């Protein structure tokens, strides 16, 4: 009898201790994630002026901010640019990262040193790499146009013509994102047992067949997570574009992320409501990608 109460008390104590350990994490999550998310949602559902932002009492306007941004002439180009920027960036980053990972997996001399060098773009602060790109692509004094001129070509207005600005920021972003793909895919490659390759070689598989039939399928889980994280990173890319073009000229490189910043902080008179609404669209897009990833994983696990 007494032993049973003791056990219960002990269990109760353990329960409390468990909650105690959980509490800091829960408080942290609430304070730094749940509350900002809630505030962002609230901002987007009310008609905030600078006055009501400070003094309170902004009227609830439902989805008006969302309707306004969807009707805004900037919305369609911003959405298209976001999709193009994200898809093209991801495609190239992944393909080049995969090629480099396979290349470095062969362990030749200096491969470790070279691999380390490939990490540099990732280690540089974004302000440094973006400013460097911006300087290299400058129409007048940029090193890229100097080379183009030396080769007898017409200089290209990389950052200042509506036709090129999106391509320029995408190129810079691809360069920055390659190391991330390289590192993840390389570690994925290391987890593939060499015996499988040996067996494939004994069965007479060519190099391409080994990649196509062994490497690629076995890398699928790593590839999926690489692409998902890449998608989230790319959707919210802001610094690179803002530093290089400010989303211009004439909105030609505006994405949803830069537009959100432009609305909220880019002019003298902040429009917090519409800015938050655009930001929330991005969150929904990232969430949708995360859910799609879970579905794919389930499907893969089911097949395995």
């Amino acid at each position, binding site marked *: 009898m007494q032993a049973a109460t003791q056990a219960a008390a002990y269990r109760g104590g353990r329960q409390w201790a468990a909650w105690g350990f959980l509490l800091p994490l829960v408080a942290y999550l609430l304070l730094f*994630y749940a509350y*900002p*998310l809630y*505030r*962002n949602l609230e901002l987007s559902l009310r008609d905030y*002026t*600078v*006055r009501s*932002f*400070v*003094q309170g009492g902004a009227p609830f306007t439902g989805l008006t901010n969302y309707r306004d941004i969807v009707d805004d002439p900037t919305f369609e180009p911003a959405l298209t640019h976001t999709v193009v920027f994200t898809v093209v960036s991801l495609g190239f980053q992944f393909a080049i990262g995969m090629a480099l990972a396979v290349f470095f997996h062969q362990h030749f001399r200096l491969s470790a040193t070279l691999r380390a060098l490939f990490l540099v773009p990732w280690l540089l602060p974004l302000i440094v790499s973006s400013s460097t790109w*911006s300087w290299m692509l*400058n*129409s*007048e*004094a940029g090193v890229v146009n100097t080379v183009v001129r030396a080769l007898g070509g017409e200089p290209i*207005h990389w*950052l*200042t*013509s*509506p036709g090129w600005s999106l391509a320029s920021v995408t190129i810079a972003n691809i360069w920055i994102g390659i190391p991330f793909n390289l590192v993840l895919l390389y570690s994925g490659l290391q987890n593939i047992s060499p015996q499988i390759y040996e067996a494939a070689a004994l069965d007479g598989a060519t190099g391409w067949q080994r990649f196509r039939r062994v490497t690629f399928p076995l890398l699928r889980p790593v590839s999926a997570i690489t692409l*998902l*994280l890449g998608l*989230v990173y790319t*959707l*919210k890319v*802001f610094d690179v574009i803002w530093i290089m073009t*400010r*989303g*211009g*000229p*004439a*909105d*030609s490189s505006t994405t949803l*992320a830069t537009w*959100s910043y432009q609305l*909220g*902080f*880019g*002019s*003298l*008179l*902040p429009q*917090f409501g519409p800015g*938050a609404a655009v*930001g*929330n669209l*991005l*969150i929904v897009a*990232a*969430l949708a*990608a*995360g*859910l799609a*990833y*879970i579905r794919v*994983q*389930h499907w893969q*696990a*089911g097949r395995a």
Partner: protein
Amino acid sequence: MRSLASSRRAIGVAVVALIAVAATVACSSSGDSSSEAGGAYTIWDPYPQFDNGSDWVKLLTRCGTDAGVSVTRTAYDTTDLTSKALLAAQQGNSPDVLIVDNPVVSTLAEAGVLTTTEQTNVDTSAMQPNLLGAGQSGGKTYGVPIGANTLALYYNKAVLAAAGVDPSSVTDWATLTAALAKVTTAGKKGITFSAIGTEEGSFQFLPWFWGSGAQLTTLDSAEAVAGLSLWTDWLEKGYAPNSVINNTQTTSWQEFTSGQYAFAENGTWQLANAKKAGFEYGILAIPGKSGGTAPAPTGGEFVTMPVQKQTGRYAVAQKLVNCLTSSDNLLATDTTLSYIAPTDAAQAKQVASNPELKVWVDAVKAAKGRTGDNLGTKYPKISEQMWKAVQSALSGSQTPQAALGQAQAAAAAATR
């Protein structure tokens, strides 16, 4: 089991994904204020270029000591300061003294963040009315100018001489364009300015916009189109580099200091750097379309006192403001900032010690506040459409006429 673990991990990933985006989007706030009337007084300024050893920070400390308090100073990038000030006001921890770019004053006043000089007994009688105008709205004054700057044309004497251009012949748009043509023919570059898609772009375009007689209330007038066509033609003919579309005033200045350019549209604050450029330079007022000096926009900051819950803090804050804007200190501050003082007395002293400043003092007297003409908080909305139109026209995606037509429609809708 495997699928459970992996789906848990997947949910984790999705949550991390969600959070990563959320964290970049959500607003954050920081900082805290001391609540008693005593203790440290906080001052925010947009001069991050000055560190603790600079004359500016020493002046802040001295003004604090004179008022019998200690001063905590925080410097922000000027583009960040508006949202920082609004967030602080929302959290109820505004600084005691806020030094802020002049077109922002009407926005902060509209938000109810600033006290009026009437409330806090700050004396503004010595300030020049065209400068003070940027800090006034609805008949009330919300701050004191600490100094003014504006735009003019810097020119490279050697480049002009080599092309056979006499700077004094540049009196209107036609003669300026003719000078640019000569310089370009002589193998040098014409003019550089900043047409970036931010407030800086509007600031640089305004002297040409106002100089042709256009009004901010009608962005698509014939005069406005003439102003934008002038810039567009310069780019088409190669008199101005294509890089102006992405130039900030700083990168534009860097182009000028390469020594290849005849002219640069830039501000008073570059005066100290001009001396280091390594070539002989001169300064011209920006000409109006058919002669005379074009009204350039006034730049420069205002010293303001944000609203506090403890109204007892105003008395000391007012001492700090008066100290910062007293004639002697203005002279010292504006010399450090390379600004023109906002009072007649201090301006006279500046010109006496440096006759070169005469051009700038005249330019500041002719200058116009951007938020003046009763535009107030309408100005930022108009300005945003204006810089977009400038970008569209210069990058060739629209004609000046079409770009300004669209801008006027959007500005009218936004300010209705």
